[in-house]
């Protein structure tokens, strides 16, 4: 789950991290007032979860309350890479000597958090990593001991800092790590972390991605989910509530399967045979019950673009006859007109096949044949 910049900064402030003075606004009038309160050159930033807002024009520098009002008006009317702008952050512009990078990320291969820091901030850290990897200081954090204060000073020294700046920066890195652990972040970064002429640091941008698996233990984020403030679409969110794993795609062939890997492979097979999937939908790796398939079908077919449906179930203990009856019942009840293609392996397969074929639903033996058939039917 991604947090908005203003949410991440609010947390940062609570932990004592220095952030620019700023206000969150929901109307152009509020933006104007915010500018007046800040009393200096400001930056108006669209609060969106998508990446690339800067390039898309979601950040405007303003030097008057009229400019602030106009910038806000424009931004509220924009969609940034498809995402509507609901809130803006109006912040004082902080002049900087240098832009640094400081962040913590889950290091999958090491199995721990890794702290990353660099004096090459303000740009894409992946670019720095590939262009000049020596410019990035890395430290793997022992999951049991956590990040020691002395380790943050070592990082600071490696970046070339000394004196008060060294201890200040070390403190900032410590706090970033503390937030990361407290909020179960997958990624937490300040880019840029500004170094001012006076030798102070300011977290000019702050980005937090919370581990979805940890949401059950973060009551503070439950409200966000309820308000639909996530990077998931409304349909994806609804599916998650019903225990399905769902991703909207831009094609027209609906896909339902059991098991994420199997469903991904099914999408790949549809592409292989010249089709475009409308969605990813995992009805549950354990075994797809008739009930879950029914729910999945309703979700997938609520997408108007879907003009064919491929159901791919590979399960040891799934009762194919039950699922078959469930599929037919759902088709009738929801008056589904789109062609349905099934591939199902499980108990009572032959009975399931008979039931489906009698209802005019092709029952294929392999997922590849199933994908090919679904593509063919979608083109008719």
């Amino acid at each position: 789950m991604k947090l908005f910049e203003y949410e991440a900064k609010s947390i940062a402030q609570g932990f004592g991290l220095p952030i620019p003075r700023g206000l969150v606004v929901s109307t152009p009038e509020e933006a104007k007032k915010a500018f007046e309160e800040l009393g200096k050159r400001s930056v108006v930033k669209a609060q969106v979860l998508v990446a690339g807002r800067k390039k898309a024009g979601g950040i405007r520098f303003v030097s008057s309350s009229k400019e602030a009002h106009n910038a806000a008006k424009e931004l509220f009317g924009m969609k940034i890479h498809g995402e509507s702008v609901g809130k803006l952050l109006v912040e004082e512009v902080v002049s900087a000597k240098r832009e640094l990078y400081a962040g913590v990320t889950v290091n999958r291969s090491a199995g721990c958090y890794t702290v990353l820091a660099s004096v090459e901030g303000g740009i894409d850290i992946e670019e720095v990593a590939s262009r000049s990897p020596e410019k990035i200081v890395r430290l793997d954090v022992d999951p049991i001991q956590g990040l020691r204060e002395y380790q943050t000073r070592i990082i600071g020294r490696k970046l070339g800092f000394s004196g008060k700046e060294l201890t200040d920066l070390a403190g900032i890195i410590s706090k970033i790590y503390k937030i990361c652990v407290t909020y179960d972040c997958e990624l937490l970064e300040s880019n840029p972390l500004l170094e001012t002429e006076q030798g102070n640091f300011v977290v000019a941008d702050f980005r937090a991605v919370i581990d979805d698996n940890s949401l059950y233990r973060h009551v503070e984020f439950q409200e966000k989910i309820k308000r639909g403030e996530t990077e998931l679409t409304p349909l994806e969110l609804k599916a998650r509530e019903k225990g399905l794993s769902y991703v909207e795609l831009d094609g027209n062939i609906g896909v339902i399967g059991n098991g994420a890997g199997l469903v991904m492979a099914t999408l790949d097979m549809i592409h292989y045979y010249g089709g475009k999937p409308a969605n990813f939908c995992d009805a549950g790796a354990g075994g797809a019950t008739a009930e879950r398939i029914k729910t999945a079908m309703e979700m997938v077919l609520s997408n108007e673009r879907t003009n064919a449906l491929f159901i791919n179930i590979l399960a040891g203990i799934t009762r194919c006859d039950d699922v078959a009856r469930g599929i037919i019942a759902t088709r009738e009840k929801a008056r589904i007109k789109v062609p349905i293609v099934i591939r199902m392996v499980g108990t009572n397969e032959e009975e399931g096949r008979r039931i489906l074929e009698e209802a005019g639903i092709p029952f294929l033996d392999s997922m590849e044949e199933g994908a090919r058939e679904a593509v063919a039917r979608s083109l008719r």
Partner: protein
Amino acid sequence: MFHTKLMLEYGTRIVAGVTPGKGGTNVHGVPVYDTVSEAVDMHKVDASVIFVPAPFAKDAALEAVDSALNPIVLITEGIPVRDTMELLAVTREKKTILIGPNTPGIITAGECKLGIMPAHVFSKGSIGLVSRSGTLTYEIAAGLTKSGLGETTCMGIGGDPVVGLTFIDLLEMFRLDKDTKAVALIGEIGGNAEEQAAEHIRRTSYPKPVAAYIAGRTAPPGKRMGHAGAIISGRSGTADSKIEALRNAGVHVAEKPSDVARLLADLIR
């Protein structure tokens, strides 16, 4: 417990179960205890397979580590990555093998299984199968069985971003297993486990043929595809990068799942 019955039927010697609050009961003939230490006091136990819900899974695994159970097969999906990282630090220190989390488990065809893999798709044969997936693994296994190749051992390393045993660990185990003639590696988008496996294969001139299938070639970037670890972040974790790395290491990468068995049949001949 449903899967306990299936494991017992397959030949796994399940000697005890642990469910806090259900000590003293009995499931399919298996006695249940409230704590792992009580279970190991009463029985000779080696391994543990854990089905505990995500919020309590780390605790259950640590309890198993504490009683020196090894390996620990962690079936549970949805465990916070921070919990897994802490658990992994402990298992590494204690030299306990962790399989998973978010895994269907491990099965040695015809002998024993720990987890939820459906027995009927596997048959005793010569292919070592290692995968990040669950049902996709069964798909591949069914193909291997159908082609007469069969499997020696099949293990799911799990769909999470941080896991215990890795592709490299399994490659090494298969290297030392005299019955395994070739390896099938099933990967997916997210992370760089496949790239690291490819590097390992190349660097050690891995002596057995390896075929692979990577799911998610057509997955959009930035979206989590079911598994917690299946997400393309920025430029890393794409299926194409994994396929390229594997091919450069001499691994035969299948275009379709059913090609895996065909590739291996040719390689073994």
